C-alpha cells in the first residue's frame, strides 16, 4: 500500500509539470505583446517598457522563462499580475469562495443523487425508477450554461426565492449555483447508484440474508448498500477534484468571485502568471483527489490490493 501511494505520488509530478508547461507555453509563446496591451492607448516610454519586460522575464526564450518560473515556485513565489498583486494572494482570496461552492455542490450531489439512485435501484423498472431514468437523461442533456440561466430566471427572477447573482447573502446565495454546478454529476451519481444497487439486489449474499429471515430494512442497509456504494463514493471523491476546477461557467453566470471567475478574467486580460498559477492549482486538485480515491477504494473494498 505504502509503496503504491509513493509510486502514484511520484507519477503525479511529471503530469503536474507537463500540464503547467502546456498552459505556460500557450500563454507565453504568443507573438503578441502584453505590455503594450497593458499600456492601452498611451504608449509607454521605451525605458519603462523594457524594465517591465525584464521584470516579467518576457525577453527570455520560452524554456528559460519556464525554468525561472519553476525556480520561483520552489519558494512559493507564483509571480505577480501586471498590477503587482501576488498570484498567491489572488488564489488565497478566491479559493475559499470556490471551496464553499464545491462543498454545496457535493452535498446536493451526494444526498439527492444517492437517495434517488437507491430507491430506483431497489424497485427496478418501477414507476420511480422510470422517473429517475427520464429525469437524469433530461438533466444530462441540458448544457450547464442553459441550466444556469433557466434556474436564474425561474428561481431568482420570477419566484424570487434565491439571490440572482453574487455572494452577499452568505451560504444562502451558494445554494442555487451549487445545485446548478452539481446537476450533471448528480444525475450521474443517481444512475451509478441505481445500476449498482440493482445489480447487488440479485447477488447471492443478499438472497442468503433474506433466507436467514432478516427484515427488508436490514438487508438493504447492511448488505446491499455497503457493497453498492463503493463505486459511488469513489466517483464523488474524484468529482470534488473536477468541481474545484470546472466552475468557470457557473461562476460567470452567477457572478461568483471564485477561482473559476479569476482564471476567466486572467485569460481575457492575458495575465499569464495568474492563468498558469491557478490552472496548475486546479490540475493539482484534480490529481490529488483522484489519488485519494484510488487509495480509498482499497480501504473500502478489501478485495482490492495494489501491491
Amino acid at each position, binding site marked *: 500500500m505504502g509503496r503504491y501511494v509513493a509510486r502514484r505520488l511520484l*507519477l503525479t509530478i*511529471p*503530469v503536474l509539470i*507537463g*500540464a503547467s508547461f*502546456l*498552459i505556460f507555453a*500557450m*500563454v507565453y*509563446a*504568443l*507573438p*503578441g505583446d502584453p505590455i503594450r496591451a497593458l499600456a492601452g492607448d498611451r504608449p509607454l516610454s521605451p525605458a519603462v517598457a523594457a524594465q517591465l519586460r525584464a521584470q516579467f522575464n518576457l525577453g527570455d526564450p520560452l524554456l528559460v522563462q519556464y525554468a525561472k518560473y519553476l525556480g520561483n515556485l520552489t519558494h512559493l513565489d507564483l509571480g505577480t499580475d501586471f498590477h503587482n498583486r501576488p498570484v498567491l494572494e489572488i488564489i488565497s482570496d478566491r479559493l475559499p469562495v470556490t471551496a464553499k461552492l464545491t462543498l454545496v455542490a457535493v452535498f446536493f450531489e451526494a444526498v439527492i443523487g444517492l437517495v434517488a439512485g437507491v430507491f430506483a435501484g431497489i424497485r427496478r423498472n418501477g414507476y420511480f425508477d422510470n422517473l429517475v*431514468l427520464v429525469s437524469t*437523461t*433530461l438533466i*444530462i*442533456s*441540458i*448544457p*450547464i*450554461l*442553459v441550466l444556469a*440561466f*433557466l434556474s*436564474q*430566471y425561474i428561481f431568482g*427572477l420570477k419566484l424570487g426565492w434565491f439571490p440572482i447573482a453574487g455572494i452577499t447573502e452568505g451560504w444562502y446565495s451558494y445554494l442555487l449555483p451549487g445545485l446548478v454546478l452539481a446537476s450533471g454529476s448528480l444525475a450521474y451519481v443517481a444512475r451509478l447508484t441505481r*445500476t449498482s444497487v440493482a445489480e447487488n439486489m440479485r447477488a447471492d449474499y443478499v438472497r442468503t440474508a433474506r433466507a436467514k429471515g432478516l427484515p427488508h430494512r436490514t438487508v438493504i442497509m447492511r448488505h446491499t448498500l455497503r457493497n453498492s456504494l463503493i463505486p459511488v463514493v469513489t466517483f464523488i471523491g474524484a468529482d470534488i477534484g*473536477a468541481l474545484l*476546477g*470546472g466552475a*468557470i*461557467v457557473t461562476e*460567470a*453566470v452567477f457572478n461568483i468571485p471564485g477561482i473559476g471567475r479569476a*482564471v*476567466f478574467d486572467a*485569460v*481575457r486580460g*492575458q495575465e499569464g502568471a495568474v*492563468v498558469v498559477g491557478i*490552472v496548475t492549482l*486546479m*490540475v493539482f486538485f*484534480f*490529481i490529488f483527489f483522484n489519488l485519494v480515491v484510488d487509495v480509498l477504494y482499497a480501504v473500502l473494498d478489501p478485495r482490492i490490493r495494489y501491491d
Partner: protein
Amino acid sequence: MTDQQQEQSLDPAQIEVDVRTGLGAPSADVTEGRQNSLWSDAWGQLRRNPLFWIGSFLGVFFVLMAIFPSWFARGADPRACSLTESKQPPSSAHWMGFDQQGCDYLANVVYGARTSLTIGLLSVIGVLLLGVIIGAVAGYYGGIADSLLARLTDIFFALPLILGALILLRVGPSTGLPILSDRGAGAVAIALSAFGWMTAMRLVRSQVIAVKSQDYVAAARAMGASNFRILTRHILPNAVAPVLVYSTITVGVLIAAEATLTYLGVGLQRPAISWGLQIENGQSLLRTAPHLVLFPSIILSLTVMAFIMLGDALRDALDPRQRS
C-alpha cells in the same frame, strides 16, 4: 463474432486456400443459415427502444434544419431587421418574437443550427483522429511509447475541456496560425479537439490491448501482414462499436461546449449566427425580454439531447453488459 471476422471467414479465396491446405476448412453449415451479427442484434434492440426513436427524430429534424434552414424560418430572413420591432415578444406571425436589433428571432435561431452542428461534427472528427491514432499506437506498440503517450493523456486529462479551449482560443488570433487565428468555426473545432481527445484515446487503447493477443492477430502476423495492416484491418474494427457510442454522445457534449465558449466570448464572433452568441446577447435583457435567452437555450438543449439519447440507445444495444 464481428462483421469483420465473419467477412474474413467467408472470403472465397481464403476458403479455397484453406481447402487446398486442408487446414481449418469451414464446414458447410457455417455459410448456411442466417447468423446474428453484433449489428443485426443491435438493430433488433434499437427498434424497441423509445429513446432511439426520439433521438433519431430530433437528430434528423436538426440536421435538416442545418442543411435547409429556409424550410424552417417561415419565410423570414435572419439579417433583415427593423429597429421598430426591437425586443417584440413572440406572436402568431413571429413565433419567437424579435431580438434587440429587431431581427426575426425564429429565423436567427433556425440559422444557428448550421454553425452548431458543423462545429460538433468537425470537432468530433478531430477528437476521433487524435484519439484513434494515439490510442492505437500506444496500445499496439506498448512499452515506452505507451508510457509516454499515457502520461501525455494524463496531462491533457487533468485540464478541463472548457478551460483548455478557452486559453487556446484566447491566444489563437495572435499566433498567426492559419485556421486558429481567424476566430471561426474551424478554430473552435481545433480547440475542442485539442482538449477533448483523451477519452477516445483510452477507449481505443484498451480495446487494442484486449484484442492484440488474439489468435487471429497472430495468424495475420504469421502470414506476413504489416503492422499497419494488422492495426487497420484486424484490430481497429473491433473498437468500432464502443467508439461509435462514444462519438455520438460526444457530438452533443461538443455542441454544448461550443455554445459555452462562444458565450464566454472566445468562440464565434459576430456577425456569425450562433446560439452561444444569442444567449450571451440576451443575458443582459433577461428581465425585459426573457425570450431572447429562452428560445436558443431550448433549441440548444434539444439538439444536445438528440445526440445523448441516440448514444445512450446505441450503448444499450451494442453493449449487452450495460443493458438496463
